[in-house]
Structure formats: C-alpha cells, structure tokens
C-alpha cells in the first residue's frame, strides 16, 4: 500500500488532472459493472474437489529426490552477542549433513524491507545469520540439515549457545515513554489536525475521553510456514507458502546477488495467510543451506518457531476522545496512541486510519506514535490498524451515545459526513447508513434495551451491541495479465497472484468467462508462479480489484487483436473495439448482435491456433480522486455468565457495503471468516509477551486460543450490493473488512449485558468478575 503511495502519490496527483481513466469521471462505465451472468453467482470453488481429497499440494509437500531436512535453533535472549556456539555434537549426530551458523553461512545481503522498494518483501532488513548479533528473542542462530526431519530435530537439541547479554527494551511500558512519530504511516502523515480539537472537546456539551489497550496477536494460519527449495546451478526455485510470489522472488534475488529472473517462487496453495505468509528468515536460511549442501531442502517451522520467527499484530495503547454538540453532531474527534514496533521494520499499525475517514467533526486530531522494542518484527495481520482502531473508536462512539442517551445507530446517522473528512474528496460509494438500516432490521436491533443488565436468562445476562466496520479500497499498480485464447475455444488467463482460500481463482474464472462470453469451464486461471506475468500481492484486500483491472486491460488488447485478425471478410469488419462485445464464444456488434463471429472462426480463418495478449492495468488513479472505502455494520448478541464471567456469542450479523459482490458464496465465507477472527480478537486471543525477557510464552495452539467450533454461532451476513462506479467490476476487496468493528460490537454487547465497559482486549472472564 505504501509502496503505491510513497513512490507514486505525488506523480499521480499531478497526472490525475489530465489523464483520463476508465474509473474516473467522464469515462464510459464498464458494462460488466452491472451486467449479471455468472458474476455474483454462488459458484463453488474450482479447487474444491482437490482440497476435499487432500490433493492440493502445499509448500511442505513438494517432493524432491535427495531432499535434506532443516531444523532451526533459535536464540533465547532478546539482545546481545553469541559468545559461544557449540555445534560439534550436532555435527556428529547421525544423519547430519551440516550445521549452518553465522560462521559458515554464505554471505548474503539483508533483505530490503517491505515498502522500501516496489518489490521489497523483507519483514525486516536485519541481516540473516551473518554475524553474532542477536536482535530478538527467537532469532535463528543455527540451522541443522540432516537426512531426515527426526535426525535434524534431535541434532538441533544438541547445540549449545551462550550469549553476552546487552540491555534490551522488552517492556512496552518502558518503550512507550520514548515513543516517537514514524516517518509516515503507509505513506500517510502520522498525524493530522484541523481546528483545535482539545479545546473543542473541553467545550463540548457531551464528551468521552477514554483509553483502550490491545494485546499482541498472531495470525496462526493452520498451515505452518514452510518452503521447499532447490538450486539448479545459479537458479533457485522456492516452493513457498506466500502472499507475494513476485516480491519474494525479487527480494531473495537481492539477498543472494541474483537477477530476479534467477529466482522462481511457486505458491499455488497457501494454507491461510492473513498477512503472515510473507518473506521471513526461514526461506532465506533454507536457500542458503541448500546452496551449502548442494541438495534440495525442506524447511517446515514448528508452531513454536512460527511464533518466534514470524511476527504478528503489535500491541497498542489508544486514546479516543469525542466531543458532541447538543444536536448530536461532533465538535471534536481525537484518536491518538502508540504501537510497539522495531527499528528495522515498517509496520506502524495504522489504528488511526478509521478516524480519518469515518465521521464528520468540526475539529479533528489523529496522531500515532511508535515505541521501539527489541522483538520479532511485527507485521500486517488481517486489517492491520483498522481491526483494533475500530475497537477503540467504535467503543468510544457507543459510550458517547450512551452519555447522550441516543441510540448508537442514530448517533452515527447524525455524524455521517458528506465528503471525506480529511481529504475533502467525494466518496466513490458510501452507503454505511443503509448497511446499518438493513442490518438493524434483520438483527432485530429494536428489541435491544439500552439499559445494561436488563435481559437475563438463568445465570446468563444477555446484551446487544453494534459497531461500524471500515477498510480502505486499495488497488496495486504494476500488475499484468496474459490471456491465451485457443481455436478449441479455451481461454487461459495467467497472472502471478495468490489463492489462500479467498476464492481468487474461482472469482476470476467467473469474471473472465463473463468478459469473454465463454462458459465457466472453458476458462483456466493460472496463478501462484512468479514466472507468470507479474501479479498483485495478496494484501490490503487489493487483489481482486488489482487482478480485475489487469484482466480488463488484457481483454481489451485481445479484442483489438481479434478484430485485426477478423479482417475484412468478417461480419465484424470495420468495427472498433468499443463497438463490440463478447458473447457466446465470440464477438458481436453491441447494438447489432447478429453481426457475430466466434473466436474459433476468427482464429480458423486467420490460420491461427491461438492468440495471446498481455497487458497491464492502468495506474490506480481512482483512489487519488475519490475517498474509496468499504463499510459495514456489525451486530452482536452476547451472553455473559453472572457467576463465572464466561462469555458466549449467541448471535452475530454483519451487514456490509463493499461495492459489488462477485461470488456470493465465497464472499459470505470471507466475511464470516473475518468476523470469526474478530471474535477471537475480542474474546480469546492474546500473545503473551513476557516483558522481562522479551519472549513469547504461549507459542502454541493449546495456549493461544483461536476460536473453536463451539465458540462460533451461526453468523448472518448481508450486503448492499451497490456497485462502486469507480472500481473495476464495481467491486471492493473484502478479505479484511469482516474483522473490523467486531471487537467493538462484542465489547458494546458485553456492556449492554453486564454494565461493564472493558477497554482492554481480549475480554476474558476475569475482566468481568
């Protein structure tokens, strides 16, 4: 996201005044934006049969002859230097091929950190096993390579390391006393202020001024991070579990001093990502060890190692203060705070982003700082910033509504802005209040008693809460798609994108089928391979819009090419691309459907077996011109046990405003998945970071509590389905919006049930006693 903004923002803003674009005003709307057909239909996943048969092959499952297996030894201190490193016993253990440490690892450049260059993918820019320095508790200090995994694991346990300790900052309480503003936050300023918000707050008729705290979280995709790597001469192949094949290839190339083309990254299936499946130490270490040993290497992290080596969502402390006038409009909105970060990564957790765009206020102050800590680089985790930022903001809005004795939905009606509060841009598509209206009706919001502790059944108190969901619209620049159309009537679309379960391949197959006027089964979607035309990373809920734009561009190129091939003997003779449309496996004149020729006929007459076109999507200028965001209204009904403080979510409904829905089945799953991760964020999940040692103390799925079946009720999901006139297909990405607002909807429901405001996540039972 910030890549786009950092490198292109200024240029774009200048360019925007004269560069016409499909999604900007005055352009002819894409007919596919509203046209029905398979787009929007609940088409079941194309990879469904493979996945239910266990035949989808993940990164740790790629076979190689002569494979060697890796195990990692990791540091047990947060900062210092390795004093002694005894590896002789491990080297002598059965089956061991080599023990790699900083002493014998190949010389490697540090990976360029994410956002420092368009394709930089490094989670941090620390050198990887190049010296004796330790930067975080859990940093790999040795890699054992052996004939079997059992042998590697055992040998690893024989390695002895001692350290010279150096003072480390492992307490957030200490770190935040030295907090400072980051250079920018994903390309946006770290603080924005208009008017004197503090003065307006003090003078406001109604006000709340509250502190919220959120803990560390880990993604915990069920697939463990893994890579299978092999060198062939100076060419490196990485079978990875990643959300960014192209960026990984480029970055690994920098590390090993190779050309980007010398590194091939494949990732056809990813067993859950959520922001965590990026480039960490393990892929680089496996490639280095493979180079030393001259053998293919499999590295599969243990669950504990995932916690130690792969960062998660960082901890924050946030202040939200809101002042309202007697009529319910806002005099002041303040959202400030601090997030823990390291000095070597670039993920400041943009928790103030929602407050920049959600509500109208006379004065506004948003400012966020980072507190530098010695810890594994924190990273992007499903709706970084927005997930926990909406927790604070939307709890505070609920508290304000109560202070004003207003229904919280009514309050949101009164503070609905006409244009973007910070940029002043028009909204491309904003129907938040409609989402609230539809959600409230379906959920039965009118049955809520605003008085806390008013509903009770046996030992259980029952309450309802709601909150706003929001997430920005992003579209990545630089992607391309290739379409190969064959005389047999097949279309093969290729772009190096990712399928982590979002339904990418299914949705784009629907899209291409509709756009080329072909049947769903006649289309093949190729992805997950860095040798394909460069694709978007799977991040920032940007992939769908980004891919769609490239496919639209490639289809336009294909249409041009087909018209050229059709020549003068075709019923299409003389037509321009904007006069034709695709239908029934061919092209016809838009207003004269009988002037038609099939693709097979065009190709046959021109004696071609196939035609191939590749094109890049236009720059994402639409997001510079408009305020483009997704919205939603989250509704929760909680039961809280009066005796034990146990919480149960009895009902949940999400009502979304995310442009057009491209596949109602996979979209429902995406929304529900976000909501469920939000329930974990709200109620059960927390990474225990021991401030004394900087060490994560619950690095397991037994002690880090992701929601289980029993925690999850039937969840309702509805959407407005109003196309955004300024996005490809009228759609927005929806991978992240689902988790936003959930923490607040839960906390507000807990308050309505119990009369207790819990402002520190997760809301565990001890906080309710």
């Amino acid at each position, binding site marked *: 996201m910030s890549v786009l903004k950092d490198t292109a923002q200024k240029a774009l803003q200048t360019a925007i005044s004269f560069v016409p674009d499909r999604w900007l005003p005055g352009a002819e709307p894409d007919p596919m934006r509203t046209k029905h057909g398979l787009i929007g239909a609940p088409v079941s996943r194309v990879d469904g049969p493979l996945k*239910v048969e266990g035949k989808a092959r993940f990164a740790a499952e790629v076979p190689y002859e002569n494979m060697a297996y890796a195990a990692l030894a990791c540091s047990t201190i947060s900062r210092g230097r390795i004093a002694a490193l005894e590896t002789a016993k491990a080297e002598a253990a059965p089956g061991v091929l080599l023990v790699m440490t900083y002493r014998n690892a190949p010389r490697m450049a540090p990976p360029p950190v994410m956002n420092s260059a368009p394709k930089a993918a490094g989670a941090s820019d620390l050198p990887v096993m190049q010296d004796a320095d330790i930067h975080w508790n859990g940093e790999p200090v040795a890699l054992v390579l052996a004939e079997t995994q059992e042998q590697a694991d055992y040998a690893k346990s024989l390695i002895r390391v001692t350290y010279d300790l150096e003072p480390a900052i492992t307490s957030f309480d200490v770190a935040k006393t030295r907090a400072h503003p980051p250079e920018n936050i994903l390309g946006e300023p770290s603080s924005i202020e208009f008017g004197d918000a503090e003065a307006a707050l003090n003078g406001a008729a109604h006000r709340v001024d509250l502190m919220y705290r959120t803990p560390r979280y880990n993604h915990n995709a069920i697939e463990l991070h893994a890579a299978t790597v092999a060198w062939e001469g100076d060419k490196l192949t990485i079978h990875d579990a990643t959300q960014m094949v192209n960026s990984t290839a480029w970055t690994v190339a920098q590390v090993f001093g190779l050309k980007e083309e010398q590194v091939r990254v494949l990732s056809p299936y990813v067993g859950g990502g959520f922001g965590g499946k990026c480039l960490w130490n393990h892929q680089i270490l496996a490639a280095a060890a493979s180079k030393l040993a001259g053998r293919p290497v499999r590295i599969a992290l243990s669950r504990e190692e995932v916690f130690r080596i792969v960062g998660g969502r960082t901890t924050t402390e946030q202040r939200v203060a809101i002042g309202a006038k007697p009529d319910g409009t806002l005099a002041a909105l303040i959202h400030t705070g601090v997030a823990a970060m390291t000095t070597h990564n670039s993920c400041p957790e943009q928790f103030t982003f929602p407050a920049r765009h959600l509500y109208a206020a006379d004065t506004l102050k948003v400012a966020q700082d980072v507190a530098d800590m010695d810890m594994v680089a924190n990273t992007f985790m499903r709706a970084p910033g927005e997930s926990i930022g909406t927790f604070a903001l939307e709890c505070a809005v609920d508290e304000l509504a109560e202070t004003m004795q207003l229904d919280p939905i009514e309050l949101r009606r009164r503070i609905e802005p006409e244009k973007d509060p910070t940029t002043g841009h028009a909204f491309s598509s904003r129907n938040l209040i409609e989402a609230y209206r539809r959600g409230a009706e379906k959920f039965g919001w009118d049955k809520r008693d605003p008085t806390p502790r008013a509903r009770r059944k046996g030992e259980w108190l029952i309450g309802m809460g709601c909150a706003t969901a929001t997430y920005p619209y992003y579209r990545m620049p630089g992607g391309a798609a290739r379409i190969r159309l064959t005389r047999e009537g097949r279309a093969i679309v290729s772009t190096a994108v990712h399928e982590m379960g979002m339904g990418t391949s299914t949705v784009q197959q629907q899209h291409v089928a509709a756009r080329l006027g072909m049947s769903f089964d006649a289309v093949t979607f190729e992805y997950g391979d860095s040798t394909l035309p460069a694709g978007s990373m799977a991040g920032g809920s940007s992939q769908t819009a980004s891919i769609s734009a490239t496919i639209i561009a490639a289809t336009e190129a294909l249409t041009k090419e087909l018209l050229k091939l059709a020549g003068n003997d075709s019923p299409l003779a003389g037509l321009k691309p904007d006069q034709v449309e695709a239908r029934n496996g061919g092209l016809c004149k838009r207003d004269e459907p009988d002037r038609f020729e099939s693709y097979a006929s065009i190709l046959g007459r021109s004696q071609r077996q196939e035609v191939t076109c590749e094109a890049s999507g236009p720059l994402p200028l639409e997001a510079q011109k408009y305020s483009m965001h997704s919205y939603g209204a989250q509704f929760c009904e909680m039961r809280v046990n009066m005796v034990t403080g146990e919480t149960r979510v009895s009902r949940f409904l999400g009502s979304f405003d995310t442009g057009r829905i491209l596949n109602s089945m996979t979209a429902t799953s995406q929304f529900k998945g976000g909501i469920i991760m939000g329930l974990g964020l709200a109620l059960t999940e927390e990474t225990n970071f021991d401030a004394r040692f900087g060490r994560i103390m619950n690095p397991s799925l037994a002690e880090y509590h992701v929601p289980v079946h029993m925690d999850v009720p039937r969840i309702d999901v509805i959407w407005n389905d109003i196309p955004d006139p300024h996005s490809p297909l009228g759609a927005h990405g929806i991978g992240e919006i689902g988790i936003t607002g959930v923490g607040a909807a839960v906390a507000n429901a807990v308050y309505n049930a119990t009369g207790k405001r819990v402002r520190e996540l997760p809301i565990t039972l001890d906080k309710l006693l």
Partner: protein
Amino acid sequence: MHCTINGNRTEMVIDPRTSLLDFLRDHLGLTGTKKGCNQGACGACTVLVDGERINACLAFAVQYQGRSITTVEGLSRGGALHPLQQAFIKHDGFQCGYCTPGQLCSAIAMANEIERGIPSFVTKNLSTETALLDHDELRERMSGNLCRCGAYNGIVEAISETFAKEPA
C-alpha cells in the same frame, strides 16, 4: 512390521521417533493429512484408526502396526467423492483447505461415535443411551478441529446435511 493404509497393506520400516503423521506424509507421500501444530492442538492431522479418530501427530507410527488406518485419500469410494466431501464443497466448508482433511476424517468418526451413543460434554442426560446430532453437540464434538479461515458455519452445515436425521 506392517499396517493397512486405505486398504493397502503397507510395510513400516521406520525410526521409532517417526510419528504416524510424518510416516504418512514424508515416507508414503500421503500428504493429504496435514500438520498444523504437531502437538495435538489443532486436529489437522486427524486420521481414522480402525474407524476411530486420532491425532496422527501424537502417535508414534510404531504403535500402530497391524492397525487399519484411513486418511483423507481413502474417503472417496470408487472414484466418487464421499457424500461429506461433496457437502463440504456445496456448503463452502473451507477456504484455504488446509484443515479440511482433518475436519472430514474427524466428522466421519464423530458421526459414528454418535451412532454408538458415545456422549459429549454437552450431552444433557448422560444416562440416556442415544446421542443427538444437534447444533451444540456437533460443535462441541468438532471443537478439536480448528479452522483459522473461519469456515465453521459451512462445515457444520455440511456435516448436518450429511449425517443428521434432523437438521442441526
């Protein structure tokens, strides 16, 4: 030393440290069974041993000689998907698909446990001989299978449709 895997007699020549999970995945190439935690906390490695579900990650393979093991690769019948596999597709009971093999094996054994009258923590009256497959029973009994994508609703619908006499 041998065992039967998906109906095929299979020789076992292994390090005693090798888990049943690694034996399946690394030695036999049966990678349908997944590793998500390697400590019995996620259920992705669920396989059936003589029809009963276990976590293959906590099992030393040597302990299972002579036993009959069914993995996700052995669920389809004569090339056709098991009805539960079809129901998972129909109800979108997965996203990334990584926990899916474990969910499938677990659910099949769970349905059998209900058939045999084995109670669960939420069974109201333990002295009754029959167990129901209602919404709470199903969710409690499947709680050993984590799904981080959050496909729980679809999974429950798929299982209900396949096994319940009445909808859960």
